């Protein structure tokens, strides 16, 4: 690396150069006295500027600036400022109450509709007369009347 190539790199902040550039610059500075002197000047200058700015900032009362910014934020916005996704969701639902109520009632209405549908169609529940009779020795006879089943056991001659 020559001095023309090293000059732009002299003011770089720590970590700003990639390893290759840092290695080349280090090798050049090891052999180039003028560049080392220039680097020393730059560091001294940046130190002066840094210290000067820090001193100047220390003399200023920035709390006035911060208070002014905070004072310009409306109180309503500050009170409703969402802190996270849940707070934002709550704020949204507060602004859209009808939508929130509808979304909350939707599963309830769906469950009610399903319940009524099952009740109307019978679902898996029994709705028809069903008779199963087992008898070890006697014959079983089932008479289906309008009031319900009559189950008789015997030789099969009881029915009319």
């Amino acid at each position, binding site marked *: 690396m020559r001095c023309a190539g090293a000059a732009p790199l002299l003011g770089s902040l720590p970590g700003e150069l990639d390893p290759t550039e840092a290695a080349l610059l280090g090798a050049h500075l090891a052999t180039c006295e003028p560049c080392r002197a220039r680097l020393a000047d730059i560091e001294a200058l940046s130190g002066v500027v840094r210290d000067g700015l820090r001193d100047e900032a220390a003399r200023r009362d920035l709390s006035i600036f911060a208070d002014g910014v905070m004072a310009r934020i409306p109180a309503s916005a500050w009170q409703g400022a969402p802190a996270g996704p849940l707070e934002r969701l709550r704020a949204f*639902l507060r602004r859209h109450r009808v939508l929130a109520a509808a979304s909350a009632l939707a599963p309830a209405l769906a*469950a009610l509709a399903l319940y009524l549908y099952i009740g109307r169609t*019978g679902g898996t529940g*029994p709705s028809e007369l069903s*008779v199963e*009779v*087992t008898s070890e020795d006697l014959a079983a006879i089932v*008479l289906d009347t309008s009031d319900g089943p009559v189950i008789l056991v015997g030789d099969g001659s*009881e*029915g009319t």
Partner: protein
Amino acid sequence: MRSTWTAAWVAVAVLVCLPAWAADAPVPVRIRVLQGFRQGAPGVPPGLEDLRGQLSATAYVRWEQAGEMQASMVPKKPVSVSLPGGGSVSVTLVEARQGAATFEVSAPGSRTQSRVTVPPGKRIVQQVSAEQGGSAWFVTIKAGG
């Protein structure tokens, strides 16, 4: 807003739990023990008038009520009904849904077991003993009392 959410979720919980609760809720069941005779003056006592349609379908002409019980039955819990002639009958409510009820009746006297589903308002009349001397024992079962 919070009350709206609470009401909605309470409604959901009720609707979800209602079928399960209803399936296991006690069911009032009226069980009567009758004796039927093939001989005698034909007739149905006044207390059995509601059974006339079913009783008259049999070859037994005279009827007497020997016992009655009102049971609050829950599914899968059998109820034992004693017969005056000795022995007993086991009545089990298998399930009750939408007014219809399924009963299992086990009658050792007649070595008969039945599983009957009756729609709402219907009644089971079942012979629970073998005929002896021209008479036999019956039980009637009706859900809803």
